[in-house]
């Protein structure tokens, strides 16, 4: 090398390097900024209004407000399932494909810890964005008073929404890194096959699904444990709610760890980077 360095690595008084968490937060912030576009905001608005619209239509068909249990079942299908699932599909599935398409992948991947920060930051952004949309949808549905004694559902359903987002965003991060160019289709397949098919099989395989944990928590918190049929009892887990919540976090951590390991080891030929 010729000559002396023009400037030192870090100027006096400049902050020391941040831990990996800060890089993840930086990615999450950048990804949320990317989501603040009119089409994405319109999609989010639809996600907020959709559950209330369906509940109002159901109540209108019945000619009265929905009973507590029926309302809870509909609300569960609409918010922690439909809204969360669809929201996560469009936010976490293209985590890598979007970067490749925008030509930004290599800029991020060449940074120390960039791949890990990209995936975990996008996961965090997907959880925050989809969680905010789903919780807003939940609040709007309860505000309309379409469900009898609906406010009692707020706490349990808010937790279900958070768990759904945390667990399923982690699950969808796997197809995002394994088949980035077909990640949306693969994620839909994972949602159908893993979450809805395997989740309803009363065998060891359903222990690995987020659906089982959410179903179980719903049944427990709604007090339906003794009233459901023996056949349906097979579709829920016997362990207590804290164990279900812990299981979601363990599954999410495992899915993310596998996804990060795959992404750290992946190579994209130059032809795939643009």
């Amino acid at each position, binding site marked *: 090398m010729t000559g002396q360095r023009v400037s030192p690595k870090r100027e006096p008084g400049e902050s020391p390097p941040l831990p990996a968490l800060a890089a993840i937060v*930086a990615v999450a912030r*950048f990804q949320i900024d990317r989501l603040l576009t009119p089409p994405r905001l319109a999609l989010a608005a639809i996600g907020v209004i959709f559950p209330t619209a369906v509940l109002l239509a159901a109540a209108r068909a019945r000619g009265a407000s929905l009973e507590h249990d029926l309302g809870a079942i509909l609300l569960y299908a609409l918010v922690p399932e439909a809204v969360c699932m669809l929201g996560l599909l469009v936010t976490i599935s293209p985590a890598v494909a979007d970067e490749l398409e925008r030509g*930004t992948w*290599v*800029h991020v991947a060449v940074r120390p810890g960039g791949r890990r920060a990209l995936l975990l930051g996008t996961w965090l952004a997907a959880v925050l964005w989809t969680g905010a949309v789903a919780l807003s949808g939940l609040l709007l549905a309860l505000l309309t008073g379409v469900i009898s004694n609906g406010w009692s559902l707020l706490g349990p359903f808010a937790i279900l929404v958070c768990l759904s987002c945390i667990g399923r965003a982690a699950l969808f991060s796997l197809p995002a890194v394994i088949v980035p160019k077909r990640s949306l289709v693969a994620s839909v397949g994972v949602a159908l096959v893993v979450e809805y098919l395997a989740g309803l099989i009363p065998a060891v395989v359903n222990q690995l699904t987020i659906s089982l944990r959410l179903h179980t928590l719903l049944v427990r918190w709604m007090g339906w444990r003794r009233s459901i049929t023996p056949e349906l009892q097979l579709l829920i887990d016997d362990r207590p709610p804290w164990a279900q919540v812990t299981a979601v976090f363990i599954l999410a951590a495992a899915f993310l760890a596998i996804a990060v390991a795959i992404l750290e080891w992946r190579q*994209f030929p130059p032809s795939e980077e643009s």
Partner: protein
Amino acid sequence: MISLTHVTKLYGSVIGVNDVTVELGSGAYGLLGPNGAGKTTFLGLVTGQLRPSIGQVRVFGERPFFNARVLRRIGYCPASDLTERSATPREWVRYLVQLSGFTPAAALKRANSTLEQVGLGEAAGRPLSTLSKGMRQRAKLAGAIAHDPDLLVLDEPFDGLDPVARHELVSLVRTWARSRSLLVASHLLHEVEALQAGLAVILGGRLVASGTVHEIRDLIDTLPSEVRVVSTAPRRLAELACGCPEAEAVRFVGDDTFVVDTRAPRLLAERIGEAAIGEGILVLELIPGDRSLEGIFGRLVQLHRGVTP
């Protein structure tokens, strides 16, 4: 600084680079080659984006793939256009600097100063989608140098730029490279020459030549070349050309055109010109083999392909 030892990179059955062995010390280097020659694969190996299928890559003495210590010291500006649309250059560069381990405040400070340095100070707040290609190239460059790397790697940095933007970017990179190491992949050879960089020529995934511009020129001087002459008295002039010590063979390629094989085309062209003046022969064309960097590159490509003059 960069060491590749018998490195081969395969994409399935397609060869990216083929048995490349090269040592590049600190300083500025140009990696030359036509499209598809393996330049981007070479850079991908150096910047830790790709693992070699065979062989060993070392940058700053360490394996670059999945190595944060090495990646922290590298700045990379890829060839692909930045299609990030909604962000501004300031947001984009700050984001990248944060990913390199700086706090948001420090990253913003560095982003602002680097954007000023690359001449994007005034446009730093405009969305990237509203900027010209040249400005986006500058934003890319700012993102690559803002964290103050020891090695800057640029892939076709001047591609698609107008002459003014190209000149400015060359000056910028040359200034930057005075105190740090630089590796530039390009097929625009005169810009690499303007960077006063050493050269490595890659073709078909193989490194076919490396050294300084002068070393490459010396190498090419040992290679066969030619002088093409078009004249109204070609046979007489060919006789005179045969008398020159630099002439190795003469062949006619048309009624008024002949070609002299030589290893010193410029000198021979001068001698033929002088002989023509002395004999009063009208010379319509007198074209020595190209010794510009483009010419050298073209000759190396031809030789690699087994094309004889």
